[in-house]
């Protein structure tokens, strides 16, 4: 059934379709409508779940951790400061190998307070062991939420997923979303039945002191799970495409095949970039766009194979790792190590600064004119 939904509603309906057992969440702009609509959905009995109205985001994730450990499928959503406040438990979730799915509305971190789009919040969680997806539109938010449960819960993965959408540009933007019938969702995503859980018939202690003799190998297993995910994610995408007709990849190429100027980016900027690519193509510039959906696991091989034949590549980050450069830029360069294509790093859209088609066109201009040694801030007033 098609409906016009904001990104936040798409996320909430995605979790609802996944029939989560426990929701624990705390309000924060611009995620609030997720909490509000889920309160309604649960209150109305449309979703048979417990909604824990916790006193902080930290407790939201802690409650999800407890619930998921006890065998429930759980959901939470947050943004910015809330995500940051969860950080210790974000690590915790991954190391506990709990396949929790969390929506994050990408919003800038304070101070100064800012409620607008910026990916620093989620990218700052890149070292925690979570899988991370960045969405370009609301359909993708809905579909990704559903698939995230299937991928996270896969026995060879058992890792949580963070599904990201840009503040306002998706969270409060209405678009057409095709929602899947519940019975078809159920067939795609069976009931959660973990092998390891809090079980009085098979009592185990989870998370006990772990000596260097074992800790290292647990870390290795997490690494291997991410490696496995790189295989399994495309399989789930394929199954989803077969069932529901919508295709996703860990990355998404747009007019890349013969592109000379290739722009790599993520989130809503990716959509605008594709429109910009069309415009530039109309002007005779062979532009192309590579949208990165999965930032963790990072699809290095895929990125490399797509980018290596371009003449110049630019990476647009809606965040910066201060003291270095944009994280997607760094990681793309690392993935490309050994190649010779010049790579340009662009910073754009921090704190909700709009990124227009003209801004994107200006990047290709700069790639033609400048050398790649300096990070380029698009539209900065110096």
């Amino acid at each position, binding site marked *: 059934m098609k409906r016009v939904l904001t990104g936040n509603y798409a996320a909430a309906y995605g979790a609802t379709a996944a029939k989560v057992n426990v929701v624990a969440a705390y309000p924060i702009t611009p995620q609030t409508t997720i909490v509000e609509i889920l309160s309604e959905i649960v209150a109305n009995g449309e979703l048979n779940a417990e909604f824990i109205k916790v006193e902080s985001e930290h407790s939201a994730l802690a409650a999800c951790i407890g619930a998921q450990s006890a065998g429930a499928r759980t959901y939470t959503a947050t943004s910015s400061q809330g995500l940051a406040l969860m950080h210790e438990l974000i690590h915790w979730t991954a190391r506990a190998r709990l396949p929790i799915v969390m929506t994050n509305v990408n919003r800038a971190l304070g101070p100064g307070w800012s409620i607008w789009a910026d990916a620093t919040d989620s990218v700052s969680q890149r070292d925690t062991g979570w899988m991370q997806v960045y969405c370009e539109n609301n359909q993708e938010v809905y579909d990704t939420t559903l698939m995230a449960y299937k991928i996270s819960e896969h026995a060879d993965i058992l890792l949580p997923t963070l599904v990201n959408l840009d503040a306002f540009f998706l969270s409060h933007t209405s678009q057409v979303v095709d929602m899947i019938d519940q019975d078809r969702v159920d067939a795609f995503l069976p009931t959660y039945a973990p092998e390891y859980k809090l079980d009085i018939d*098979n009592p185990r202690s*989870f998370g*006990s002191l*772990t000596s260097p003799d*074992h800790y290292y*190998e*647990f870390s*290795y*297993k997490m690494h291997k799970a991410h490696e496995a995910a790189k295989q399994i994610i495309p399989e789930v995408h394929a199954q989803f495409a077969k069932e529901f007709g919508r295709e996703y990849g860990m990355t998404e190429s747009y007019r890349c095949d013969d592109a000379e100027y290739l722009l790599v980016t993520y989130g809503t900027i990716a959509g605008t970039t594709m429109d910009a690519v069309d415009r530039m193509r109309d002007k005779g510039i062979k532009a192309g766009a590579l949208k990165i959906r999965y930032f963790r696991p990072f699809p290095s091989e895929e990125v490399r194979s797509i980018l290596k034949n371009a003449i110049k590549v630019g990476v647009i980050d809606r965040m910066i790792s201060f003291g270095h450069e944009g994280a997607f830029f760094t990681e793309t360069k690392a993935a490309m190590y050994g190649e010779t294509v010049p790579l340009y790093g662009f910073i754009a859209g921090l704190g909700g600064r709009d990124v227009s088609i003209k801004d994107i066109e200006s990047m290709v201009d700069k790639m033609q004119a400048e050398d790649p040694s300096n990070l380029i801030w698009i539209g900065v007033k110096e």
Partner: protein
Amino acid sequence: MTKKDDQKPIVFEGASDMPPMSASQGSMSVNKTASWRSIRPIIHEEKCKSCMICWKFCPEPAIFPTSPPTINYDYCKGCGICIEECPFDAITSEKEGK
């Protein structure tokens, strides 16, 4: 309880036979804490009234509720609580020989 409780240490070959997360596989009863002990409590049957106070307060627990109680020297850490709490001075302390 499928949990391992045969008091033998659990050894893994490597990552492949470990669970995905730090989830216990067996009981701490594997850990004989007798080596912690520097004094050894001795129950003197003749004085003992089987009031079970020693059993009640043993923190390990390392006392079986028999009559008179029996001390499990595999685990007794030699804290001395049983000695201190026995109302009938039926337990004495001996130095553990090393």
